[in-house]
């Protein structure tokens, strides 16, 4: 198995979860129904991402992705984008808050260089500057 030889970036978490604001990032192609769907017609993939506000009704979310079976996410988006789960954890006092911005993108792409050098740092910047999250939960789909 090939392993990335780059060292692993690691930021220690020095807060209490119960006082921390959490953002969700998913590669599972999640977006709002009234946002532009990801372009699944392009064989090269889609390098864009969608910002998802914290107060949306999860029924307003959907998946556009053709590289995994999202039948389950169509029934309950929380299996890949756990926004209602996060709300439950907040109401139980397990986490402190829900970040101002969450991110959905479509993780399938043939344009890896553009993904690694463009989309990935852009999403990180959005999380850092826009979401004000203390920590992030990511899902692969």
């Amino acid at each position, binding site marked *: 198995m090939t392993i990335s030889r780059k060292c692993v970036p690691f*930021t220690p978490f020095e807060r209490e*979860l119960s006082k921390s604001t959490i953002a969700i990032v*998913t590669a599972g192609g999640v977006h709002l129904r009234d946002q532009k769907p990801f372009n699944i017609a392009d064989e090269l993939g889609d390098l864009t991402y969608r910002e998802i506000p914290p107060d949306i009704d999860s029924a307003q979310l959907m998946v556009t992705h053709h590289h995994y079976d999202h039948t389950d*996410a169509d029934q309950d988006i929380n299996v890949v984008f756990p926004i209602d789960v996060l709300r439950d954890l907040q109401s139980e006092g397990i*986490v402190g808050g829900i970040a101002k911005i969450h991110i959905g993108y479509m993780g399938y792409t043939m344009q890896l260089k553009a993904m690694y050098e463009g989309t990935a740092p852009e999403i990180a910047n959005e999380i850092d500057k826009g979401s004000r999250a203390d*920590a*992030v*939960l990511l899902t692969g789909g």
Partner: protein
Amino acid sequence: MCHRTVVAVQREIEMKGVPAVLITVSPEVSAQMRPPRALYPKGFKIGNSLGRPNMRELQKKVMRDALGLLTQNTRPGSIETIEYPEYGEQYEPPHVRSLK
């Protein structure tokens, strides 16, 4: 593929100084990119990162365990595996073909 690129995003977030934890259901693929922190809920299929639809208690447990990794002394680049028998039928994750 999604389970590779999501680690690239995670690593960029970590480089901004924001701690991040990944839930992966394709651990071999994610491991190639060495995620800073990651949970593999054993036997969950692709598309079921948090479990099955409407299994809210299970979904909460998985999310709590994932966020819990933030406060544990995990080894950067490694993936923690946790079993959730209540998930039911287990699935074999995609394997990475050895290049050797």
